[in-house]
């Protein structure tokens, strides 16, 4: 049996459509079977509510008198992109004001507008014959704008990697606070309620499909940026009228140590056309698998420590390498439910009819890494290869002489086979002198837990190590822990004239 979209829409119009949320669907399919569920259910509603950085809105402010061709535009001190027509601008959610002491960004401005607040518009121009004005400042409400159209380049991730941290320090990431030594796991996404997870083949989710967007009746534009459905990370570009949105489903947020983002509620109604749709909407948390990634690796390709399902993540704890680690979400499941439930009431009340995609989204597409034409500088290119080292049994006075003679402040300490076992600095030696002979040998004063780098490590990461640990040099070791060089803050300065290393 198949069901046409016309039939479903006719039922919606007469108020007889059977609508369920994606959370209710698996049990219905269990009970009635696929054919039975197809006959019973007309529409499945989905929903998600979480941080979606790639969001923002286009505005048309209307013309002032005398008119201005806005070249730079600020809304509550947050700069909007004005490189479009005279009084148009795009405000991105993550753009931050430079003038505030607490993080305040585009997301805060959008929330301010949606909640009915006043926002200060400031703009500048060089002035033209047709647009003579050079600056303007005014206060605006959302209703004062001709258009305020949300266009979010990337929303509603199909699923997302969960995050943990194997390093010894707390990390502040877009996945929230990650405690040291795998102290917690942070995840995002609504699992069984997630829109794309209910149609991973993109059979009914595509361009032109009506959706719930932050309380407004929105629409899918097409595939989202970085869409990678072929690897299970499909995304959507969506649009909707900001004037119809509600604060409940549009919230500015600040990820500590990272920056501003925006939480948005997105829901897609799925017409139950055939048993294929029945099967895909019967997806459970147990079926949606994701990786727990180590965000302690400061590289693009981070290692996976475990594969888990959303059911595991939602249970409150998972196992990583035999240890139980607590999990918590960044996205709100409660509000994802509210999205799916409100969308359900819209359709039951005949407020929204469904449509099939006018253009399909590629379910096999994979996103690519950046093509980099300039080689990322590595430690080997700038490290000092003339390593002056010392062994741990030597007298502190020998260390002092070597430091003086080598005009350096850092001596890697090596064992008999040349492997790194510690480091001694001029500061350590000075301290030993002041201690009146309590310490005699290098091993008495050396630091054993040495922060180190490798020849292949990108310079930016080595620089970050120096900064985070408040040190000024790193021994460079090969794969066998043999010292092959030393990298100092001064070496970093050699890299690019004019580039500042803090």
């Amino acid at each position, binding site marked *: 049996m198949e069901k046409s979209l016309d039939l479903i829409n006719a039922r919606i119009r007469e108020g007889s459509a059977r609508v369920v949320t994606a959370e209710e669907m698996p049990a219905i399919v269990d009970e009635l079977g696929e054919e039975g569920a197809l006959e019973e259910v007309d529409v499945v509603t989905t929903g998600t*509510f*979480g*941080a979606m950085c790639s969001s923002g809105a286009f505005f048309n402010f209307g013309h002032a008198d005398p008119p201005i061709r806005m070249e730079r535009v600020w809304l509550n001190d947050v700069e909007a992109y004005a490189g479009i027509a005279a009084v148009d601008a795009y405000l991105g959610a993550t753009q931050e004001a430079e003038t505030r002491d607490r993080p305040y960004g585009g997301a805060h401005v959008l929330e301010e507008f949606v909640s009915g607040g006043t926002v200060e518009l400031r703009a500048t121009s060089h002035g033209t014959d047709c647009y003579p004005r050079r600056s303007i400042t005014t206060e605006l409400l959302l209703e004062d704008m001709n258009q305020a159209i949300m266009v979010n380049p990337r929303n509603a991730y199909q699923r997302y990697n969960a995050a943990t941290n194997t390093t010894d320090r707390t990390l502040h990431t877009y996945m*929230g*606070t990650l*405690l040291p030594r795998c*102290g*917690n*796991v*942070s995840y995002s996404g609504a699992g069984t309620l997630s829109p794309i997870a209910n149609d991973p083949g993109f059979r009914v989710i595509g361009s032109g499909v009506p959706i719930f967007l932050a309380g407004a009746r929105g629409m899918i534009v097409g595939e989202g940026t970085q869409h990678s459905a072929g690897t299970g990370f499909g995304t959507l570009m969506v649009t909707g009228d900001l004037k119809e949105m509600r604060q409940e489903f549009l*919230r500015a*947020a*600040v*990820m*500590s140590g990272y920056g501003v*983002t925006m*939480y948005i509620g997105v829901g897609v109604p799925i017409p139950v056309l055939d048993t294929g749709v029945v099967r895909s909407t019967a997806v459970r948390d147990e079926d949606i698998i994701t990786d727990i990634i180590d965000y302690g690796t400061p590289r693009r390709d981070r290692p996976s420590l475990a594969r888990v399902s959303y059911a595991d993540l939602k249970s*409150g704890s998972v196992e990583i390498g035999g240890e139980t680690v*607590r*999990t*918590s*979400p*960044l*996205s*709100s*499941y*409660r*509000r994802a*439910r509210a999205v799916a439930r409100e969308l359900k009431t819209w359709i039951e009340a005949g407020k929204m009819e469904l449509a099939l995609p006018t253009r399909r989204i590629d379910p096999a597409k994979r996103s690519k890494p950046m093509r980099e034409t300039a080689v990322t500088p590595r430690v080997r290119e700038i490290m000092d290869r003339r390593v002056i080292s010392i062994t741990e049994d030597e007298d502190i006075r020998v260390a002092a002489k070597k430091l003086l003679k080598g005009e350096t402040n850092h001596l890697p300490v090596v064992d008999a086979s040349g492997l790194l076992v510690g480091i001694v600095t001029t500061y350590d030696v000075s301290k030993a002198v002041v201690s009146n002979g309590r310490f005699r040998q290098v091993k008495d004063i050396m630091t054993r837990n040495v922060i180190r780098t490798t020849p292949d490590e990108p310079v930016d990461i080595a620089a970050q190590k120096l900064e985070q640990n408040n040190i000024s040099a790193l021994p460079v070791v090969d794969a066998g822990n043999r010292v092959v060089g030393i990298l100092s803050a001064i070496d970093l300065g050699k890299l690019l004239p004019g580039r500042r290393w803090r």
Partner: protein
Amino acid sequence: MKLLLTFSRKGEHDPGREPVIARVVKETGVLINVEKANIDSMAGEVLVDVPDGDADLIQRRFEEMGVSVRAVVDAIIRDEEECVDCGACISVCPQEVFSFDPEWRLCVNAERCVLCGRCIQACPHGALSQQE
């Protein structure tokens, strides 16, 4: 009940120079659990947990020894308007103060809080604050 003890260590006779906690335990026989201690050369701040029934006695004894005592109730405050029930606070808390109810609503068990402040920083919505 949790009591926040603060004392000076500057002067010769300041309570911070004395083993005040040990003394109070010995005198009263009440078992005191130290949950957090932050003591430097000038001052100290110690969070202790004591049985509710003995809290008044303990508070009085500490005060007699020159220690300032404040009972910590509802240590962490949630702004219900700002909170979206995301749960980012749950796994960063060492005391399991936060949890979900079956409806995925965030529940706060403030009695367990030891004022570490991690959740305040971790909350993306600025919904958590510490009672002053």
